[in-house]
Every structure is written in C-alpha cells, then in structure tokens.
C-alpha cells in the first residue's frame, strides 16, 4: 500500500498517475496540470509513449505520470499492460481516473478494475459542462458513497476544477483503502480458495494485491499467469482451475461487473432521452457517402494552403537571419578554416534544416487542430473504404497524412494500429508521402529548370509519392505481408472546439522531433560533408580533387544510367543525412553555399543537367532511402533490422528504376 510517510517519496513528494478511457480529456487534464513542464519518453521495452510532468501544490512536489488511455486493465494491448504494471509495481500515491461525464457507464468499467487493483483512486469527473448542457445530472455525493472514493468535477479544456482536484490528491495520498466488488457466493468462494493458495507465497504477497491476482487468474488472464510462472504455487493454482469451467467464470464475472455498474449509473445519473446532437448533424455531412471524400480532400488542401501561405514569411525571416549570421562569421573570423567550417558547415547545414521548421510546425498544427476537434477520427472512417481497397485500414491514413510533415513522428503514429501486419505495412509505405524536408529540393530544381510550371511539377511529385505508396501497399500486402486487413474499430468523439493550449502542445510534441534531428544527426552530417569537401588539406573546397569528389567519381557508374554525374551522386549520398542536404551539398559543389539563386545559376550553366535529369533527380529524392533519422525510427518501431534494411533497399530500388525509366525513356523518345 502506498504510504507517503513510508515510501521512498517521503518528504514532500508525491507521485500521481493519470488514467482513463481514450477521448475523455486525459491529455487536456495532463496539460492543465503540468503545462510545459513535461517530459516525453518511452516506457521501457515497448513502443508506448510515456509522458511525465511536475507541478507544485501546497508545498508538495507532485510528479504526474500520464498512463496510456485504455478501456480496461486486461492484457489486450501493450498500452493496457503498461498502465496496469505501473499501478501494481510502482504503486503511485494516487491514481486519478479521468471520467467522461457524458458516458459514465463505459468509463466506470475501468474504475471497477482500478479499485480491484487496490489503487488509491481519485475520480476527475471531466466534461461536466457537456453533460450538463445536454441535460444529464450526476449525483456526485451518491457516487462518492457508492465507490468510496473522492470525486471532483473538472472541465480540463478550460482548466476548471484543477485546484480542487489537487486538494483531493493531497487528501487521498497515504490513505489505505481496499474496495471490493462482490461477485456472488459461488465466485467469491473460488476467489477465496485461490487467495489461500497464493498467500503461501510470501514473495507474491508482497508484490501484488492478492485478491486482484486471484480474480485475474480466475478470469484466465495470461498476463496474471505470467506473474506466478515458475513459482511453486503455479501448479497448485493450475490444478485448482483445471477442474473448473473457466469460460463460465469469465462470463459470470464480467456480468457481475456490468451489473454493479448499471446499478450505480441508475443510482447516480439521470439522462434525458438521447436526441440528435449537433455532432450527429455535423457527421451527417462530414461522413456522407457523396461529400465525405470531397470534404476530406478540401480540408487537406486547406491545411497545406495555410501551411505554405503562413510559413513563407517565417521562412524568409529565418533565411535572412542565417544569411546575416554567416556574414558576421565571414567578416569576423579570420582563420579561413574556422570561418569555412562555421559558415559553410554549421550555419549552412543546420540553417537549411531550421529553415523548414515553420512549415513543418504549421502543418502539424493544422493536423493537431483537426485531431483535437474530432475530425481526424472521421477522416479515418471516410478513408477506410479507400484504404481497404489497397489492403490497409482507415486508421492507417492518419500516419500517412503526418508523413507530409515529417516521417519520424508519422512512423511513431502507426502505434495506434493494433495489428502488427497493418502497422508494418503502414511503416513501409509512409516514407513515400513526401515530407517537408524534400520540398526544398523540389523548389530549387523545379525553379531552375521548369520556370513557370514549377508549381505543377512539384504537385506531380507529391501525387507520384501517393501513387507509389498505394502501389507499394498493394504489392507488399499481397506478397511479403500477406494477410487479412484487421478489423478496425475507432471511437468517434463528439466534435469539440480544440483548445489552443492542447493543440499547440500537440504540435510541439511532433514538431520537436524534427528540431531534435536538426540538433544532433544533421549537425554531425554537415560536419562530415564539410570535412569531406575540405580534405585533403589545401584542396579547393568541394572540388573534384577533394575526398567528396573522389567519392562522387567512385559512385558515378552506379547512377550514370540515370543521367546523374558525380556531383549528383555526392549530393544523394549526403541526402541520407537529411533530404534537404541534397540541395545543400549541390550548393557546396557548385561553390554557391546556401545562396539559392547562385545554386540555380550554377546548375543552369552545367551541361550535365537538363530538365529531364532534374525531374529524375526529384523523383529519386522522393523515393530513395529515407533520411537517417527515419531509418533509425523504423528500426526502433519495427524492432527488426531485416525490415529496416528492406525498407531502405525497396525505396532505393524503386527510385533507381523510376529515374532510369525517366532518363532512358526520354532519350529513346528523342526529348534529350
């Protein structure tokens, strides 16, 4: 039992875990509690996100751990196991369950399980404003009496009820309270028998609430059996349970739980007859057969339009800042080596990445707003038919959309897909959705060689990426990843006005991964490029006789059939660091640095480049091995080098074939 005076948190520290069903406002509450004092990491061993934050209240330092949103604490998914193991093993001082006041019945199922776990539960009855608006009334006092835990009303989105909740946290911490659900005589005597067996094992007794463990064993929970595995009591428990009809017990227990819950809901809440809500009316339009997809496409177009319209001024500011900075460096640093290192290497390289941060953040902001408003779940529904036809389910469309921003968070977003096959397939096709970092390559190349029609050419590249993703999903889904599309179920939360704070934090979570990449991997990458372009000592920067030049000449035969010369080969090699480096490297090789117009002039004057080759290069950049940060995240999320290498080799092979067809095709047709 947690006791603040005995536990390792003695003094004025408390640990509070947040739990609750998905879509109950848990994230809003977490943000309201901790603000920007958050840390996002991973739970050890699994790819489930772990968020923690701290706050101070009445002299107590409170650490808040945001557990994954779950419907229950069985062992259905890694999320549930993480949440459950944390409560059992780490014994937080208080577990706050966030409850959706508009949907008590389903939410209370989790409450009964938390109580059974012996956690010190505190209920944050959230969205009470919505419940009251539609005429529900909830008797909080009766609820507290029945559940024997404190209940506090909150409206997390508007940060209402937070002080009262924190006061309740202090009151709840350190209390000892065990709450039982009665399962009826027959079941209770079975639970008693198992408990007697388990209590022989002092180790188990110290580690787990025995009643809970007994209940879970009786239910046939595999994870619970894992906890007694290899212990002397295991065989005794199995023997006892083998003689029983397990299926009967399981169904009976679930029934009892539901009965408790319906009894409670009848007691504490009065609901008016459900009438058509505004959400239903909006859904009639947004999910309709005829309008669903056009509206989806229009919203996406709008999101991109806003991104590029509002992002450009910010980009110009950042661009001139880095221009100014490299000017300062070149006038003030007299040592030519150091000056070149700082100016060409660090500022040029990192600057080219930071440059696209506004666009990426804006796109993620748009997606966050769409998600927080409830629309993105509808998008998954609208897209399901289309996705199904290419061998994926609707939910896969969300990571693919994020792929237009940055592939790294997009691949992490595939975690919402339950089936490993669907998830792997989505991970393999997401890199073909053209990310923000590839944009600068298109802008410079199309701007140089296609003049007026540059916009259409870039649009065509994006479409090609989508087509390749579709084709790949179909191809891989019917060969190496054969299997049924897993059945999908997804909650459609009521539409809400997104809160700026939540949307901004959400955006920052995704966008900061891009920034982190700029600070670490890309910095290392540009240093490498700079070194290779400057060595051996005395060579002209980026010339044919430098290391970079030798590398280019060495690789030239491989890309010669695509019409690429040694400079392009070098740029592509360094593009593995980050795709925007393709342009940065060409800048170095044309002796133009980061100055776009100089790069353009240099390329235009080079007889080795023409519009067809430039188009081939754009396509190659779109399709070939994603950047090193993406490859890293693919390895982490798939847990397999085999699939990581497959992903890299598959993309690069496709890129080569496409560029080959473009170059050779145009030669046969006599265009070049």
């Amino acid at each position, binding site marked *: 039992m947690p006791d603040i005076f005995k536990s390792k948190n003695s003094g004025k520290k408390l640990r509070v875990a947040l739990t609750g069903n998905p879509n109950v406002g848990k994230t809003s509450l977490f943000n309201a509690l901790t603000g920007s004092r958050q840390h996002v990491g991973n739970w050890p061993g699994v790819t489930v996100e772990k968020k923690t934050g701290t706050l101070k209240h009445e002299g107590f330092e409170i650490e808040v751990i945001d557990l994954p949103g779950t419907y229950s604490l069985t062992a259905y998914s890694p999320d549930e196991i993480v949440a459950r193991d944390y409560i059992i093993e780490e014994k937080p001082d208080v577990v706050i369950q966030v409850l959706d006041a508009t*949907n008590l019945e389903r939410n209370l199922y989790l409450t009964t399980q938390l109580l059974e776990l012996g956690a010190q539960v505190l209920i944050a009855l959230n969205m009470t404003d919505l419940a009251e608006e539609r005429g529900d009334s909830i008797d909080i006092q009766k609820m507290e009496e029945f559940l024997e835990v404190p209940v506090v009303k909150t409206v997390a989105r508007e940060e209402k009820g937070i002080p009262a909740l924190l006061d309740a946290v202090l009151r709840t911490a350190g209390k000892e309270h065990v709450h039982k659900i009665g399962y009826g005589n027959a079941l209770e005597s079975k639970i008693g028998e198992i408990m007697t067996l388990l209590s022989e094992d002092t180790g188990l007794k110290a580690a787990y609430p025995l009643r809970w463990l007994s209940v879970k064993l009786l239910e046939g929970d595999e994870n619970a059996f894992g906890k007694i595995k290899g212990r002397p009591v295991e065989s005794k428990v199995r023997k006892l349970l083998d003689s029983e009809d397990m299926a009967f017990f399981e169904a009976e227990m679930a029934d009892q739980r539901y009965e408790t819950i319906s009894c409670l809901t009848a007691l504490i809440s009065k609901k008016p007859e459900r009438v058509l809500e505004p959400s239903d009316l909006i*859904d009639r339009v947004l999910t309709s057969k005829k309008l669903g997809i056009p509206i989806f496409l229009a919203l996406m177009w709008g999101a991109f339009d806003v991104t590029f319209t509002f992002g450009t001024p910010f980009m110009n500011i950042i661009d001139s800042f880095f221009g100014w900075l490299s000017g300062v460096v070149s006038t003030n640093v007299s040592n030519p080596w150091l000056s070149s290192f700082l100016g060409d290497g660090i500022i040029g390289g990192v600057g080219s990445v930071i440059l696209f941060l506004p666009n990426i953040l804006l796109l993620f902001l748009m997606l966050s707003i769409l998600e927080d408003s409830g629309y993105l779940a509808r998008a998954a*529904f609208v897209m399901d038919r289309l996705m199904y036809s290419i061998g994926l389910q609707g939910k896969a469309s969300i990571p693919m959309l994020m792929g237009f921003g940055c592939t790294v968070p997009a691949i992490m977003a595939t975690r919402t897909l339950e089936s490993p096959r669907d998830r792997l397939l989505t991970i393999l096709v997401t890199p073909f959705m053209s990310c923000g970092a590839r944009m600068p390559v298109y802008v410079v190349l199309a701007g140089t060689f296609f003049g007026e029609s540059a916009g259409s050419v870039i649009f065509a590249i994006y479409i090609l990426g989508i087509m390749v993703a579709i084709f790949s999903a179909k191809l891989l889904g019917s060969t190496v990843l054969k299997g049924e599309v897993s*059945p999908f179920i997804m909650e*459609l939360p009521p539409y809400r006005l997104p809160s700026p704070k939540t949307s901004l934090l959400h955006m920052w979570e995704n966008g900061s991964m891009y920034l982190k990449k700029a600070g670490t991997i890309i910095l290392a990458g540009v240093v490498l490029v700079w070194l290779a372009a400057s060595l051996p000592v005395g060579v002209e920067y980026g010339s044919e006789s430098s290391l970079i030049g030798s590398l280019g000449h060495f690789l030239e035969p491989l890309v010669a059939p695509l019409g690429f010369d040694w400079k392009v080969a070098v740029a592509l090699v360094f593009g593995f660091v980050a795709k925007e480096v393709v342009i940065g490297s060409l800048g170095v090789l044309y002796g133009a640095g980061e100055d776009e117009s100089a790069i353009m002039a240099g390329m235009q004057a080079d007889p080795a480049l023409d519009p067809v080759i430039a188009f081939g290069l754009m396509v190659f950049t779109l399709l070939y091995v994603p950047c090193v940060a993406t490859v890293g995240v693919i390895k982490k999320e798939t847990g397999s080098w085999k699939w990581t290498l497959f992903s890299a080799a598959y993309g690069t092979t496709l890129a080569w074939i496409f560029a080959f067809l473009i170059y050779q095709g145009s030669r046969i047709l006599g265009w070049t």
Partner: protein
Amino acid sequence: MGSSMPLSLLPEGKIGRVCGINAGKKLSRRLFEMGFAPDVPVQVQRGNCGALVVLVNGMKYALGRGMAFKIMVRDSQENE
C-alpha cells in the same frame, strides 16, 4: 423478435440489440468493454459504404466491415 444477423447487414437508421459476438476471447472482451454487451441497443447511423458509424450507449464508433460482421444483432421492436 426478429432473427439475428451481423451488424453490417442492419439497415441505416435501424436499431438492433446485441445478441452475440463471433470473435476470439480478447476481441470479444474488448468489444464488450466498449459497450457491445448483450441486449444493448445499437443503432447504425451510417452504413453501406465499407465502414459503419454506430451508436452504442451514447458513444459513437467507426467500425470496419470485418468487425461489424462479428457482432450479431437482433432486429429490435424499437423501430417504427
């Protein structure tokens, strides 16, 4: 009482009552926890285009066709 059928065949707007789930243990339990419990009324708000939008216990879910085939419902008397 009408005969039972998969949820995916229930016409748009109609209300059915859950009478069984043809799925493995884990999935059955998950659906149960999400509110698809015996005798609970389910309304199909949108169907016929692959996935369905259904209303259960005041919650709205998008269900894939495959999933909707696993949930058996009875045509309920509540439809006028």
